[in-house]
């Protein structure tokens, strides 16, 4: 058993603190994704777990051992880097065997482990090649193979797919999922790509400015974001936000007239709030039937679906995900209707109002 526990972990560079007390418990075998905009500290946090950055405060515990002062190689981790970081002067076999050779392992064991990892990743025929003779996807596979060979308790991935082209990224994503199913090892994965986060993770950790914004399963974050930041970060295209005024416990008005009832836990008081709804949940109706209506500014046609950017008089256009076959063109007026259960409400600080009912998919 090798749970990973972070207790009030902090990191400061000189006087500037970049990680402000992170608490997290990753159970054995979990696939956890750290996601956040660039500069949020996700890579730094990963490097602290790896032991490549000093820990300024708090504890990192792997299994039942506090590893703050333990060298990276003794933490039972293996790391896969964004730039692959293969040793250019060694062939694929040499790269994969390097750590074990260095640890003075038996040659037969090394050979066995390298062959096995190469078999898992389909690298057998490439073992004699140098890194520069490999394609990007193959290099990344070697980098992953090098991690597998070490048989770690925890895999750490630092944006491993961001140097690959789109098609390859999708393919490698699936391979990573299958690898996780096969190895059943804890994996911690850093990315800025929310699609990778949604598809790979058992649990997602959303970070901003060195703080955890929310931890949860992908669907939990999607359906029950704790605040406006998470709501905006998870989902693509991002959630629409409308400035609104709270009238009663759960009733808001937006754009002057439109009265909307949001099924959230009631709170006292009135005042400015933000209404959120995802583009895929908006219903498109005739202009006069809609709660709100506006003019189509741009229609992005992807074939299977169409993103309509609608002008509601706000700074940012309101995005509606519509069917690929919609006829509406630029300049036409359309009406918008919001299914109540898909609405999100955030107070002035951006904190979400709790939904009265949890989404059916989330137990």
């Amino acid at each position: 058993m090798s749970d990973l526990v972070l207790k009030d972990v902090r990191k400061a560079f000189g006087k500037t603190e970049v990680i402000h007390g992170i608490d997290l418990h990753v159970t054995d075998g979990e696939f956890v994704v750290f996601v956040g905009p660039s500069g949020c500290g996700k890579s730094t946090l990963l490097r602290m777990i790896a032991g490549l950055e000093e820990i300024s405060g708090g504890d990192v515990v792997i299994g039942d051992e506090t590893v703050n002062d333990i060298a990276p190689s003794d933490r039972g981790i293996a790391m896969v880097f964004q730039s692959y970081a293969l040793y250019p002067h060694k062939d694929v076999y040499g790269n994969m065997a390097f750590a074990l050779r260095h640890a003075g392992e038996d040659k037969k064991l090394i050979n066995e482990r390298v062959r096995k990892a190469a078999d898992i990743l389909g690298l057998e025929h490439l073992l004699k090649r140098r890194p520069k003779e490999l394609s990007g996807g193959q290099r990344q596979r070697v980098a992953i193979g090098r991690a597998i060979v070490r048989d770690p308790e925890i895999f750490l991935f630092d944006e491993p797919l961001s140097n690959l082209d789109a098609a390859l990224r999708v393919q490698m994503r699936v391979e990573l999922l299958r690898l996780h199913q096969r190895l059943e090892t804890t994996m911690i994965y850093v990315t800025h790509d929310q699609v990778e986060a949604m598809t790979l993770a058992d649990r997602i950790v959303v970070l901003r400015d060195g703080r955890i914004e929310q931890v949860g399963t992908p669907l939990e974050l999607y359906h029950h974001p704790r605040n406006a930041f998470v709501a905006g970060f998870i989902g693509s295209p991002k959630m629409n936000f409308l400035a609104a005024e709270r009238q009663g416990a759960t009733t808001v008005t937006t754009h002057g007239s439109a009265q909307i009832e949001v099924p959230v836990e009631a709170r006292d008081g009135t005042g400015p709030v933000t209404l959120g709804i995802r583009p895929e949940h908006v219903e498109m109706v005739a202009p006069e039937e809609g709660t709100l209506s506006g003019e189509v500014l741009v229609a992005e046609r992807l074939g299977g679906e169409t993103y309509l950017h609608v002008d509601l008089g706000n700074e940012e256009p309101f995005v509606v995900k519509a069917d690929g076959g919609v006829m509406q063109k630029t300049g036409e007026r359309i009406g918008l209707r919001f299914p109540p259960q898909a609405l999100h409400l955030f107070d002035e600080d951006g904190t979400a109002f709790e939904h009265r009912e949890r989404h059916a998919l989330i137990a």
Partner: protein
Amino acid sequence: MTDTPDTSRSRRGRSKSWGTAATVHAVLLGYTIIALFPVIVVILNSFKNRRGIFTEPLALPGPETFSLEGYSTVLSEGSFLLYYGNSLIVTVVSLFLILLLGAMAAHALSEYRFRLNGILSVYMILGIMVPIRLGTVAILQLMVQLDLVNTLVSLIFVYTAQGLPIAVFILTEFMRTLSRDIKDCARVDGLSEYRIFFEVVLPLVRPVLATVAVFSMIPIWNDLWFPLILASSDATKTVTLGVQQFIGQYTVNWSAVLASLSIAILPVLVLYAIFSRQLISGITSGAVKG
């Protein structure tokens, strides 16, 4: 149809590039001749007798003028081989120290965050701007106090100091471009900082090391100043100094001078041949590789 304009454009492009290439080659050829001329004259005349050298300095050695007297004088003169050995020892040891210490310093400056890093790197490369010969008197006093005058060690110290600034400068710049991931990866793999330097960083900077080696080697091998001042005893003379023995106050044994110079060129050529393949990629790697 559409091919026609393309072809003409490419033909024009080709003729233009042919013109450029011709100019470039003419310049390079001219420079090569100017640079090689003295060397060739030295080598040619080293195979002639005294008469041949003075009557027709530019002629090839003919049956009448051909002679190996210069070489036989030089090689029979026992001390010349000693000087030759001195030069080799001083150059090779200095070069080794420059590369090792320079690369280590550059690694530290480019890899580790520590206070005074910036000041230290400026301090290290300040030597590029200050000619070491300005300090000759102080160096001599120092060597006298350390009792190192007339030893090869004194020369090795001086040359190491002379070569380090440029080595640190070039290597630091290059090492900054190395990916941090690969060193981190080695750390995760359990390598000590020293082994990361020797097993990961050094192989990656090999081309640059070759470049630095060639740049540092030539001034050391050719130097006359410091051997004359610090190590002019018979046992510690270097080749450049040793040649002087054939230059007397009244007569100069030109055959011997030219022969010894010709021999002195050899090791530089050999070392250059060893390094040159790496050298090209070293010089261009900073510019071409992103």
